[in-house]
């Protein structure tokens, strides 16, 4: 069997086996009779490709499919009010944040980064625009993960525009016609957003930009298609950008090592702090879970002090299914457990 045959005939040990793939249409899985665990109760699963969220919704409501994983906010609210359907949105290991490119002006000055954090009421923006699918967050480690010390433990910036004004003025800027200027140059930057790669990303960016304009910072929002967006970010040509990080596991190193260590593969703020690198390495080599949790708490406090990000929140996974489906328990991890699912009447 060559590589191509192998990729088209996957082999595994799970409760379902690959049966057939119709490109662009569906993937069929059948029950694995030799599975070691309990179940599965279903004879098989068909994953259908339905690109439009609106079509997914109609298919669910007409019984064409049993489960959908995407819906607009309006549809979600409608399903929540409908007793015939169950809406679940378990928090997932998906953190969302705005990255300052620390190597670029004006974000090479920590006071400006801190000022922006004080100037924006991000929890309210998230609650207003992306709730309940995104919950406000205060760290790059998502709240469901054990590396997050819990609500209210980590220091946060809060919303205090006066403090923001103080810090900007301390950095040498003065307010002229409603906008801050230094040496005749306006305090302004480009904010790069993907085009709905993440839930309500560009809407959150728009609200963020509007709040910064209220304190005198000029923001140019630039929305790019994902390929072009990643090109700009990889080339470090952005000043600030909206990004997410999804992981299937709960270990905090999956977030800190990639996003905060020097040269990390998701270090799109392009910054370096030897103390954070040292703490991350120490956490990697520590086996005691309590000690590790303490180390990750210190890492998160250091990240807060450096003000490399404006934390947006943690995005949930969405599952909507008819109430007659039993035994389905969505989790924070990417893998779904369908072994005990029963389709009732």
């Amino acid at each position, binding site marked *: 069997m060559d590589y*191509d045959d192998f*990729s*088209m005939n996957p082999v595994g040990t799970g409760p379902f086996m690959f049966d057939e793939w*119709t*490109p*662009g*249409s*569906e993937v069929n899985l059948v029950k694995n009779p030799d599975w070691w665990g309990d179940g599965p109760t279903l004879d098989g699963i068909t994953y*259908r*490709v*339905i*690109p*439009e969220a*609106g*079509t997914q919704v*109609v*298919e669910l*409501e*007409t019984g*064409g499919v049993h489960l959908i994983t995407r819906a607009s906010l309006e549809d979600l609210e409608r399903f929540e009010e409908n007793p015939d359907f169950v809406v679940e949105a378990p928090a997932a290991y998906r953190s969302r944040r705005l990255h300052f490119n620390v190597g670029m002006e004006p974000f090479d000055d920590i006071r400006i980064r801190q000022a922006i954090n004080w100037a924006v009421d991000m929890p309210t923006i998230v609650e207003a625009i992306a709730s309940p699918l995104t919950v406000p967050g205060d760290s790059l480690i998502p709240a469901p993960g054990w590396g997050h010390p819990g609500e209210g433990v980590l220091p946060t910036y809060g919303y205090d525009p006066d403090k923001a004004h103080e810090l900007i003025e301390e950095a040498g800027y003065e307010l002229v016609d409603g906008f801050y200027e230094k040496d005749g140059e306006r305090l302004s930057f480009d904010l790069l957003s993907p085009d709905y790669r993440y839930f309500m990303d560009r809407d959150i960016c728009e609200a963020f930009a509007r709040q910064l304009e209220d304190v005198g910072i000029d923001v140019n929002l630039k929305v790019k*298609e*994902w*390929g*072009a967006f*990643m*090109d*700009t970010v*990889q080339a470090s040509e952005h000043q600030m950008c909206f*990004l997410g*990080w*999804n*992981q299937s596991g709960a270990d905090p190193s999956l977030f800190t090592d*990639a996003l905060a260590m020097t040269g990390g*593969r*998701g270090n799109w703020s392009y910054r370096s702090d030897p103390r954070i690198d040292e703490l991350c390495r120490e956490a990697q080599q520590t086996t005691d879970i309590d000690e590790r949790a303490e180390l990750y708490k210190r890492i998160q406090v250091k990240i807060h002090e450096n003000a490399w990000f404006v934390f947006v929140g943690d995005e949930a996974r969405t599952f909507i299914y008819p109430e007659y489906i039993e035994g389905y328990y969505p989790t924070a991890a990417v893998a779904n457990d369908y072994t005990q699912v029963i389709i009732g009447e």
Partner: protein
Amino acid sequence: MFQYTVQKMIGCIPILICVSILVFLLVHLTPGDPARLLAGPEAYEEDVESIREQLGLNEPLHTQYAEFITGAIRMDFGQSFRTNRPVMQDIRDRLPNTFQLAIVAVTWSVIFGVAVGVYAGIRPNSLGDSVSMGVSIIGVSAPSFWVGLLLMLLFAYQLGWLPASGIGDSPFTWDGFSRMIMPALTLGAATAAVMARMTRSSMLEVLHQDYIRTARSKGLNERVVIYRHALRNGLIPVVTLLGLQLGVLLGGAVITEQVFAWPGIGTLVINAIHARDYPTVQACILLIALIYVIVNLLVDLTYSVIDPRVRYD
């Protein structure tokens, strides 16, 4: 006619070469690194570099083009970056779906459009003419995603008569046919409306010609005058339009396919563009160009069948 056809086909070669250069440059110059998109934002840089090497993206542009064009001559467009299958296999899987949808859409839109156009054309400024032309304006103006969703809400959601989306195993079974009805109606709606308007104006023009007056003065039945004398001559611009529309529909009706989750060429191209799947985009665009060329050649040849005065000797 044979000589004309051969000449036309030879004339297509430079067009296709130009298209191949254009599409190659466009996809390669569009921002977005296929290796990065394939690996995902969470991937390690070494993995991205290894994918880039594996896909041959580190080769100079002219080498990549030479490989593409020599392969294209043999109808071998290489492996898809996204599905890791031969591009021609992906196209072979999708093309029949696009064909069946386009053929059904064109068939109903031609029958309906021409019938309405003739009806309106022979009764200018009547109530029927105004209503049919008013409806056709809506047909032309309504965006296909809106028409598609409205049909879906009516026939799938409210009435429950038709499945909302997807494709059946065969168009000759009720499941397959019922899944095709709404996409075909959506896809053909604009074409039917344009056909109706074009046929009406063409009929109006022809009906004022001297030979129609002569036919009537000979005492010919009005039905014969309209269908044998007027409609046949009025069809020339309609056939031209049909050729253009057929090209568009066979090229993949992207929006309709997206709305109805119809796995055709349109969705293949869109997904390939998003993933910067260069071989698939290049192959599909070249194929669409080829379809246009062939359809328009067929349209040219049809003129001589409709109107014997047109000769290609």
